[in-house]
């Protein structure tokens, strides 16, 4: 179990910038055996939260217990409960798969027959059986990620933390990785906390947490999150989104939200969507580039909650990577 209680983190200011609050009185409990996805736009505080959870940073205030141990007071005991998959690969590319795994085993005090048994068990979940002697350098991106998963499984953690583990993988490797992760999580009843921007990954999670501005905006199962948005919505694409939105509000009295070129009528009741769509087309055909009825996805929930579209987040991410 991960128990985060009233956690705040403020980065010290410099001469040019004031102190910045990254996490603001956050409380979150992740139960044993739960698969939880943590999502949020850049700057939402999820990376800071991740750093604190792995024990790399100390928060300003608040408490965290991991598997019953106080992470801040007894970091070594808390660390022994968990394994971490980082966004940037944490394997040594110059060493073979087996050498990487043996090093990890030593770090966690595993040796002898114990190690052999766990090695067989950990590798069994992956496609690495024939590649143990190969240098990690020679593996594909997907397989290299599996080495990290195997490394983590070696120590039989009760808690697994993953930070955007599928970044940089092609869609099929991504799907394999997530499928393997779910299988392992279920069979070992592990507690998993994974940060992700990819909403297809979140659909199978037990709960999804959405953060923004250092606070928790929502924490619910994917089904319940979708239900919060009503069942359907009408999505209009327009180059004059701003003026069109004003017109729709004034003429029809409908509730709208605008995200860039998109106008969304999110609170359309079931069965009302088609008449609304016909009405909009009849009145504003010239202003509309495209129009559709959509079942809400988790991505839509995210957009609704954070006020940002997936493209905006992606662009922000690109910018933060290049700067």
């Amino acid at each position, binding site marked *: 179990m991960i128990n985060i209680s009233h956690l*705040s*983190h*403020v*980065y*010290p*200011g410099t001469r040019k910038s004031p*102190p910045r*609050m*990254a996490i603001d009185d956050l409380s979150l409990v992740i139960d044993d055996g739960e698969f939880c996805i943590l999502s949020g736009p850049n700057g939402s505080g999820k990376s800071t939260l991740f*750093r604190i959870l*792995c*024990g*790399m*940073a*100390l*928060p*300003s*205030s608040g408490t965290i217990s991991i598997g019953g141990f106080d992470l801040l007071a007894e*970091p*070594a*005991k808390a*660390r*022994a409960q*968990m394994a*971490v998959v*980082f966004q*940037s*690969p*944490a*394997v*040594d*590319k*110059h*060493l073979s798969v087996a*050498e990487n795994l*043996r*090093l*990890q085993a*030593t*770090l*966690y*005090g595993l040796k002898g027959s114990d190690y052999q048994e766990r090695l067989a068990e950990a590798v069994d979940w992956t496609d690495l059986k024939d590649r143990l002697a190969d240098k990690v350098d020679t593996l594909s991106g997907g397989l290299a990620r599996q080495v990290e998963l195997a*490394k983590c499984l070696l120590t039989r953690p009760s808690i697994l933390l993953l930070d955007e583990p599928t970044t940089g993988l092609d869609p099929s490797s991504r799907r394999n990785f997530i499928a393997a992760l779910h299988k392992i999580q279920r069979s070992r009843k592990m507690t998993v906390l994974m940060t992700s921007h990819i909403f297809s990954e979140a659909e199978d999670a037990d709960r999804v947490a959405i953060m923004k501005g250092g606070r928790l905006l929502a924490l619910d199962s994917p089904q319940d999150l979708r239900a919060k948005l009503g069942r359907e919505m009408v999505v209009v694409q327009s180059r004059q989104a701003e003026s069109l939105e004003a017109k729709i509000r004034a003429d029809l009295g409908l509730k709208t939200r605008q995200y860039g070129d998109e106008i969304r009528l999110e609170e359309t009741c079931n069965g009302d969507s088609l008449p609304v769509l016909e009405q909009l087309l009849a009145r504003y055909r010239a202003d509309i580039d495209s129009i559709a009825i959509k079942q809400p996805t988790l991505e839509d929930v995210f957009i609704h909650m954070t006020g940002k579209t997936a493209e905006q987040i992606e662009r922000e991410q690109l910018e933060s990577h290049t700067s």
Partner: protein
Amino acid sequence: MIRVALALAQREFTRFIRQPQRVIGTVAQPILFWLFLGSGFSSSFRAPGMEHISYLEYFYPGVMLMMMLFASIFSSITIIEDRDAGFLQSVLVAPVSRLAIVLGKVLGGTAIAMVQTLIFTIAAPFLGLSLSWGSLCLLIGAYVLSSMGFAAMGFFFAWPMRSSSGFHAIMMVFLMPLWMLSGALFPIEKVPGWLHILMTINPVAHALVLMRTPFYMTAAQAFADQRYLIALAVTAVWTSACLLGSMALVEKRDKGVPTPR
């Protein structure tokens, strides 16, 4: 803790021997330095009280010190690489003693330096230097202690660095002068006063005494020599201080400032 440190050190060593360019570079460069500078200065070098010593011979222990310096610099650069590549984070989140993390790097660097200096020791008989078994033990002890000191000092400087070019700058203005003013290149006796002071307080100069003495004294003579004992004490203190300082750096975690409310 020792097991973890040795496993990390073994990784360093494995990485080193898998990069043949690094092996060739670190072994060949000091030898070239020694042969060229040593031969070139031989005719003009006459140190007071050491008239019978050729520069090639004078410079010999200094080159050993240089090998250790280079080995420690290269192994410290790998700290920055490990951080960039992401390997370091998996070590940091493991439930291991922070001293083991420092010792892993330091012992790895020491092992690499040892291989080089031991190969280089083969040159001693050709210079007419003979070593008794006792002196050889002293010499190896000096190798281990000084290599650890250099590696720990490199660690201390490299840990807070985020780029290897920044580390190169530090190395050039700090680590290299320590070696240059150790008495490796020229003896301390005839230098101007200000330089004499700098050279006396330089801890690396004491490591050089540990390196040079075994060639000219037996073990019993060395342990009776006050200068040798002082050098041994200074080097031991300096090495432990660097190890402890490095450990304190690794242990430090970014702390959030108190919330304004």
